[in-house]
């Protein structure tokens, strides 16, 4: 079972490397990422690298593959320690994830390592179902979540579609100079 006691159980991964994070307006952030084979060793290594890079980046709760310059549909996520999170599924990586359903929109402020100078108010669903595959085994996982984990998942899947939060901001007064990380 890929989910035990509400947490996604990740397959064993190789040792990850810390990769440099690219920032807008890098072209790789504006292009749609391609689907990949979740058991491909290069994808498994990327999963480990994303988690390692995310862990060493202060305030980082999620990282999409194109944020480290790779145009594949892979992202890491961990909102467990975030005060705005309600339901959380621990630290995980999903491959080829798609949004199954998204409801109950709310506006809230978010930031991004690839847009380091700004934060923005973005309306996103607070109830979300995402389906994806685990790296290494290809097991399917269905994540039903809410609140900040739902926001973070939509933010990462947007990256994989070539969008950053600046494409979603709610109005002319919804962009703010960044003060601190999320």
């Amino acid at each position, binding site marked *: 079972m890929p989910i035990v006691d509400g947490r996604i159980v990740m397959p064993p991964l190789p040792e990850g490397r810390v990769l440099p994070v690219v*920032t*807008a*307006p890098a072209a790789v952030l*504006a292009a749609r990422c391609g689907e990949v084979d979740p058991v491909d060793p290069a994808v498994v290594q990327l999963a480990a690298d994303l988690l390692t890079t995310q862990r060493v980046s202060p305030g980082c709760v999620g990282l999409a593959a194109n944020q480290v310059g790779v145009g594949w549909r892979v992202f890491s996520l961990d909102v467990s320690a975030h005060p705005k999170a309600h339901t959380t599924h621990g630290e995980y990586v999903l491959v080829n994830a798609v949004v199954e359903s998204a409801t109950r929109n709310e506006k809230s402020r978010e930031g991004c390592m690839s*847009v*380091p*100078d*700004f934060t923005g108010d973005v*309306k996103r669903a607070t109830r979300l179902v995402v389906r994806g595959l685990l790296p290494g085994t290809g097991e399917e996982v269905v994540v039903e979540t809410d609140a900040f984990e739902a926001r973070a998942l939509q933010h990462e899947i947007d990256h994989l579609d070539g969008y*950053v939060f*600046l*494409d*979603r*901001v*709610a*109005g*002319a*007064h*919804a*962009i703010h*100079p960044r003060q601190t990380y999320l």
Partner: protein
Amino acid sequence: MTQSLAVTVLGHDRPGIIAEVTGALAALGGNLEDSSMTLLRGHFAWTLVVATDAGAPAVREALRHIEAEGLVVSVLPVPEAADTGAPGSAWLLSVHGADRPGIVSGLTGVVAEAGGNITDLTTRLGTGLYVVVAEVTLPAGADVAALADRLAAVADELGVRASLAPADSDVL
């Protein structure tokens, strides 16, 4: 006769500008209505509407000490027929990309050609990244798909990304 006057105050920021301006207006019996202030890198800009019986010359005189302190003040009557509820549809134009001259003029020129009116605008320059968010009112019957295509084409020429989406207009 009570008249609405548009007052603009511009200049280097310092503590107390708003207190002094509103104090002078209150002393004339003026009632502060809509206003919007912004501060960009130490430059202060405030535009406000005040309803008063005093008349524009008296308001100018009351604010003369503000001008003497190095601020620029203008006082103009608000047009009677000012249109506050333009018909049409509300849209949000979001643009970001590598900074270069001409991004705002190129894209807002496309909006103007389509008869669109910019009702709010923020531009921000970050490290190597330029961001524009404009709220746009389009006239009834505007060809939104054609405008979006033209914006995308001009954005492509400028090396930036532009998206046009309906503005949020939820009423609860």
